[in-house]
Structure formats: C-alpha cells, structure tokens
C-alpha cells in the first residue's frame, strides 16, 4: 500500500504546474517605452527616412473595463498623427501580435504612418493589459476591451466608422476580427489581417496532427475562422508563404475562404516567415498595397 501512496504522491507533485495563463507572451518588466531608442530584438528597423517627428507621437493612458469587471484597468496606447485632426483623418488601429510590448512593434507602427505618405493617416497602437506598461493580466476578454477602449477614445476625438481601418497581426487578428464582427464603440470600415490564425482548434490540431478539440487545452473562444463569416467590410489578407509559425494554408487560407463579404484581396509573400511580410514584400510595395486598399 505504501508503494501506491508513494507513486500517487509523485504523480501529483509532478503535475502541480499551472499553464492556464501561458497563452500570452507578454513582457511587463520594462520601465518606460523606448520607441526609436529601443535596441532589443525587432523584426526590422526602418531607415531615417521613416522617422516620425516627436510632436506627432502621443503616449496615452486609457481606461479599459470588461463587462464582468468592477474596476478599470489602465492600459497604454500611442497615437501617431495630429490629435486635432482625428475628426477628419483616416485612422489605422494596429492590433499587435503576442510578443512583449509596443517597443517591439514600434517600427511597424511607424511604417503604417507612411501609408499614402508620411502622416497621411493617423495610426493608433496599444499594449494589451499585461503587455509593456499596461497594467493587469492578459485575458481574451480584456484584450477585446482594451482595443475597444482605443475605439472609444478615437470616437470621443471625432473619428467616425467610415474612417477607421483595423489592422491585426498574428494574435492581434483576434481582436480585429472580434471587434469588426461584433462591433462595440466603432465599426471598422475595412479590415487588414496579417498572418491571421484560424482558431485555437487549428493550432491544437496542427501541433498534434490529430482531430483534437481545443477545449482540451484552453478555454479561449478565439475563432477568427468563424467570426470572419460575419464580416462584410473590405478585407485584405497578407501572409508569408514560409510562415513557420502560423501555416498560411491551415490558418490564413481558412479565414480568407470563410470571409462573409465580397471585397477581398490577398497577398501571399514568397519567402516570408511570420513577421517578415513587410520586409520581404518590400516596404514600398507593402505601403502601396495598403494605400491602394484603404483608398478604394
């Protein structure tokens, strides 16, 4: 009998680990945002011609609250552009991926500030709760509330639905799809998804090779492949053909196929891995592609 207790105890002890909150790859250890001075790992670094003048960069603190929360969470966001022109400008709301914080994505936001010319459009980016200097812990509902907090702020500044373009990259495609399919404060007029994932289920099945339900591992409801069915706004899909993280066939293509509207465009980029689309596409081509899509 002692043997049985011993083996059961060993099994229990070895299994006492908690992985539920481990979806998120956030870094909240930073003390301040470095943006242009950030020297950590980045997907690419733009040359000086893409510099943004300091007076066009505004760091914001916004209040975010999910339906179930009794108190607000303070999140950090930044706006590139002229705050006084939000009531007339087109704004790209950029929902970044799962990596660390806004410093990592600064070059991308800066690049977006050059679509159809420098500072032609406003660009807003945020750190979801638990990322960077945003307080709280990352959750799926919290992430949607955080993006909606940006929309609320933009709406208060005079932004209208028709001038809002939402852009999601990787993890950010979840909030982009969710808030376009089930709008809250604003209804994006166009949606751009770069390297979208289809659903948690596809991730599980790609990893296991078996037809395995996502519920075994996660309670996440993220399901871009289903949400996109409700979306009729013009949709642009960008994906690297060499994406070794989110397979363009099992993820992006399923999202593209399920799109509920009639105005869709896709650009599959030869040689591009996850996060390499703008660089492998060529920054000018990338900007031109986005610019044409937004202007249509």
């Amino acid at each position, binding site marked *: 009998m002692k043997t049985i207790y011993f083996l059961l105890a060993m099994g229990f002890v070895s299994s006492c680990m908690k992985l*539920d909150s481990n979806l998120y790859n956030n870094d909240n250890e930073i003390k301040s945002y470095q943006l242009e001075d950030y020297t950590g790992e980045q997907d690419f670094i733009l040359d000086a011609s893409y510099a943004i003048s300091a007076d066009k960069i505004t760091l914001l603190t916004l209040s975010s609250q999910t339906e179930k929360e009794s108190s607000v969470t303070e999140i950090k966001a930044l706006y590139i552009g002229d705050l006084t022109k939000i009531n007339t400008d087109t704004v790209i709301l950029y929902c970044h991926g799962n990596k660390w914080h806004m410093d990592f994505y600064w070059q991308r936001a800066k690049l977006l500030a050059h679509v159809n010319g420098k500072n032609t459009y406003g660009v807003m980016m945020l750190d979801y709760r638990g990322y960077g200097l945003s307080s709280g812990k990352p959750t799926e509902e919290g992430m949607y509330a955080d993006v909606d907090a940006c929309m609320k702020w933009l709406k208060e500044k005079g932004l209208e639905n028709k001038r809002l373009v939402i852009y999601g990259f990787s993890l950010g495609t979840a909030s982009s799809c969710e808030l376009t399919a089930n709008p809250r404060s604003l209804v994006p007029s166009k949606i751009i998804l770069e390297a979208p994932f289809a659903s948690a289920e596809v991730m599980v099945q790609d990893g296991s090779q078996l037809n395995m339900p996502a519920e075994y591992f996660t309670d996440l409801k993220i399901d871009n492949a289903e949400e996109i069915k409700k979306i009729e706004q013009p949709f642009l899909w960008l994906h690297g053909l060499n994406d070794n*993280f989110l397979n363009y066939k099992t993820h992006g293509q399923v999202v593209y196929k399920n799109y509920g509207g009639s105005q869709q465009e896709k650009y599959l980029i030869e040689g591009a891995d996850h996060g390499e689309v703008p660089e492998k596409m060529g920054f000018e081509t990338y900007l031109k592609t986005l610019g044409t899509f937004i202007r249509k």
Partner: protein
Amino acid sequence: MKYIFPIFLILVLYRCAPSRYVKPLAKKENSLALSFGGPLIKFSGAPIPIPFTTLGYGYGLTDNITAYGNLHTTSALFGNSQLDLGATFSLYKKENSFGITASPALQMAYSIANKTGFRVWPSADANIYFHPAKKTSYLYAGINSWFEFSKLRAHGEDQKKHLVPNLQMGYVIAKTKWQHQFEFKYLGAGIPNTPGVVEYIGISGKGALGIYYSLVRKF
C-alpha cells in the same frame, strides 16, 4: 524568431508516454507504473524535455497477455480525462533471450471541464526485446502508431493525416520488484514539424525526439 504561444507547448502531451508493456507480466502479477517525460522542444533557445506524467496499472491475465490502463495525470491539469486501455500480447518468446510483442490500445480523452470533446484514437505498438547475456534487464525497440479516423478537422477542412507513427528504443533495468525503464522516442516520425506553434527538436525538420523514464513496481 518565434512568436511563441507557450500554452501550446503542451500539445505534445498527446505524444504519448511509454504506457504499454514491452514484455508481458507473469500470470496474476500486478504492476503500478509512473512515467515521466516527453518530447524535446526548444524553449528560449535551449532544448528541454517536457515532463509529462502518466500513472499506470497492469495485470497479467496469462503469462502471454497483460491488460493495462493508464491515467495521463498531466491532462487532468487542464480539466481533461485522458485514459488509455490496452493489452500486450506475446507473439513470440525465447525464455531469457528475446521476444516479440504487440500492444493494441484505445486512447480516450474527454474535456471534463467543458463536458465535451470525447475522442477515441486507436493505437498499436509492436516491440522486440532482447536480454543481453541472459540478464533479467533487457533492451527493446519498436514502433507505435496512433490512428485518426476523422475525415474532417476544424472548420470542415480535410483531415489529411490518419496515422502518426512513433519509433522507440529503450532499456529496462529489471529488479525483483522494481523496474526502471528508460526510453528514447522519435515521435511523428517523418512528419514535418513546421509550420507549427511548438518548436520541436526533430530530425531534419521532421518529428520530435522524446525521452522518458518509468518507475515500475510489481506486486
């Protein structure tokens, strides 16, 4: 560069621990086993094994057939019940020399937390074991496969893989009552391990290497 979703590291949970018996128990013999181990993955640049655990029980129906069941304890952390039930059959044996066994099994899983997602995957093992210098300890090697019979996967897409093969070799240090089993596996042999959210350590971009240890007590 990897944009890692760390939770999906646990996917390999289902890349099975060595839960079957390579060599059948004696008639009416019982055994309890605790297995640790899992595939090697790259995490922050370093190769690490994932320590999954399995608790198992076996019973010798005859000298040539052992029935067994295993509870995959790590699965329980995620609110899942994962069990496997199977039997090891001796196909050929030469006493204290070598033998060949086969172990068909059913791998079952259910999300208790969500009250959904019951799945069954048949699996099969074939192993050959060998007692060097007629010692009680033995070496073995074999193949294991999981079978997926679903025609469709998520979002109504085609399920293209219907067989996930794994190769294994190991060594069992056999004492009178205790056994220590060390196993090395090549999981998903020949199946490309990219694209994917888990950075497996495989062979030429295929499959995943895994290491396992089992502590077995017979009574």
